[in-house]
């Protein structure tokens, strides 16, 4: 039995469209592939499913058994060996923290969080170790993982030479590769305000949205103030990669100053900020 559900539609004698969906990362994953052979499409979907499940196992902040949790539990001052993948996710997170002037920060769940936590983290890429030099540092990759997973999925798709795909993880992280069977790129719409939608065409890029779906569901911490960001609102960015999309959208949601936003945006190649509710 496959761990995901799917529907297949033939388009013409050379092409078909596969829609598959499953639950992962506390959310849902939807994937549409346009290609020749149904079995190949199912196989690549299976690989993507496995990869996402693997990432979730590795870096789920809330899973007491994940490698991330184990790292979070290591006390300060202890040099810890960390698997290659987790190490590179954390390294990337650190880089994005710099690139966003601290606005994107996976350390916000640390005890006595003050910002600037990364100054107390030593990542040794060669030796494969991490040392936290301050008590209570905890990494929460929840706001990073979906975009990272999109990048991983893209690698798999390229490996299978599948080129026309729309992949959404929880609607907030979307990867569009190649074309819709009857269009140029992929056209998606997202809410601009409560009663109007904006349409956008995506060409080999990611659309990432950060924000509060409603005023009750706050979950993004402002690294500058340390407080949860209040109120409804959201912001979307279009980027080449998924991980950078997560970093940038979070940074744009947190940072409301136009000048600061522009400076940060300028550091992400080919990134666009969409005008959305916020």
């Amino acid at each position, binding site marked *: 039995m496959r761990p995901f559900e799917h529907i297949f539609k033939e388009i013409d004698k050379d092409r078909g469209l596969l829609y598959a969906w499953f639950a992962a990362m506390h959310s849902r994953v939807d994937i549409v592939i346009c290609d020749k052979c149904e079995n190949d499409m199912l196989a690549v979907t299976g690989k993507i499913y496995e990869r996402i499940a693997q990432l979730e196992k590795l870096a789920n902040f809330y899973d007491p058994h994940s490698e991330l949790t184990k790292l979070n*539990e290591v006390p300060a001052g202890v040099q810890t060996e960390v698997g290659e993948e987790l190490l590179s996710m954390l390294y990337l997170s650190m880089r994005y923290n710099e690139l966003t002037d601290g606005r994107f920060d996976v350390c916000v769940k640390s005890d006595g969080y003050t910002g600037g936590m990364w100054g107390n983290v030593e990542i040794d890429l060669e030796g494969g170790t991490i040392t936290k030099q301050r008590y209570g540092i905890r990494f929460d990759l929840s706001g990073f993982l979906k975009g990272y997973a999109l990048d991983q999925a893209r690698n798999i798709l390229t490996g299978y030479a599948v080129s026309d795909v729309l992949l959404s993880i*929880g609607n*907030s992280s979307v990867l569009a590769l190649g074309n819709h069977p*009857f269009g140029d790129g992929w056209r998606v719409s997202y809410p601009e305000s409560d009663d109007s939608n904006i349409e956008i065409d995506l060409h080999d890029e990611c659309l990432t949205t950060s924000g509060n779906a409603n005023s009750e*569901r706050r979950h993004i911490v402002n690294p500058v103030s340390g407080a949860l960001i209040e109120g409804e609102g959201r912001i979307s960015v279009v980027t080449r990669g998924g991980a950078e999309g997560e970093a940038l959208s979070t940074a744009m949601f947190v940072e409301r100053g136009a000048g600061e936003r522009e400076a940060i945006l300028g550091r992400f190649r080919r990134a666009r900020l969409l005008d959305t509710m916020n």
Partner: protein
Amino acid sequence: MKKELSRRDFLKSAGLIGLGAGTLLSTVPWMEALADENTKKTIGEKVRIGIIGPGSRGRFLMNLIKKNPKAEMVAICDIYQPSIDKALKIAPKAKVYNDYRKLLEDKEVDAVVIATPLYRHYQMAMDSLDAGKDLFCEKSLSYTIAQCYDVYQKYKSTGRIFFVGQQRLFDPRYLKAMEMIHSGMFGEIQAVRAFWFRNGSWRNNVPDPSLERQLNWRLYKEYSRGLMTELGGHLLQVGTWAMQKLPETVMGAGGLTYWKDGREVDDNVSCIFSMDDGRRITYESVISNKFYGLEEQIMGNLGTVEPEKGMYYFEDGTVNGVTPKPAAGFMQMMKDVQNQVFEKLPFAGTSWEPEVAKDVKGNYIMGEDYKINTDGSQELINAFVEAVITQKQPERIAEECYYASAMVLLGYDAIEQGKKLTFPHEYRLNYLNHKHQAK
């Protein structure tokens, strides 16, 4: 098919193998007593146990002790012949005493289990510790908070091993649930709603009316504190374990509303325990309606745990491992494609949230196939035996047990006095948020 759990399986299913020592020590340090590397060292040792009050619970414990090859029951003491006769069937070689003080003089006895009616616990526990015996006392620890405090101090001053019958501390469902709770999976625990509802008289059959008070001691205030001490302690201990916080105050109300058969204790009670920051644990028990059964509903801002049911739920309705329905927007796209239309796909936005269904099925704490085969009592006994052998009191056991009893007794007083009571500073231990202050 019922799976038998080995100890290793038990620790594993409770999520306690493969975790760093840090986790073990910080959230459930007492499990260390049952860690493989420790129990291996004590193979071949034998603890000699005396049972005081082998009534219904006492004999239940005897059957568990019997399963432990490191323990042997060398003596029993009771004042009621039928209890002695039944106990001898479990431990035929045990010496029989009618006076517990004689049992305590017996040099062959290393440790005692006290399972007598509540009002007897205090003197028996104090005397046991004074006699140099390691002590397993059934809950609740004593009849008043002051007495509980005395026993705790006696444990401290004698340095004996000291356990109370709080088996949830070793119940795999609770251990696993607490691990999840303490990892922050459900956010910060805001409230715990604990209840135990039954529909039954709570009476024992009495062969002769002259034995009524002796056999139905639970129903009379002279011997028992009713539903508070008999049921409440298990649930309140779960509440503070989940919150890692002890209450400041308690309010309560109760009454005898249905079983008006000459008993004195309430059959309908309710208490509110409040923390210094306003978070609460409530406990309710009614024994004339069993519809809602038994549960501790542990409520965090991100989710809820119901350990008795073995389930947890997320506020956003997420169910692990369950395939969602196909998304409407994508289904529309599949249709559009058949009509050769290039249409927009309306879906992107903030993170997808499932509708919060009222019939949320929830997630299994121990996995779907888990069959309950222990409530932790066996492991509690085993841990006690290990502790007696190694003479190492597991961390936090005594304190968790002390507070379970102290809280129910304070709740009882609040009900009786019809007042909001503050947890007396002189009966606080230096434990969690509590600080002791002499009167």
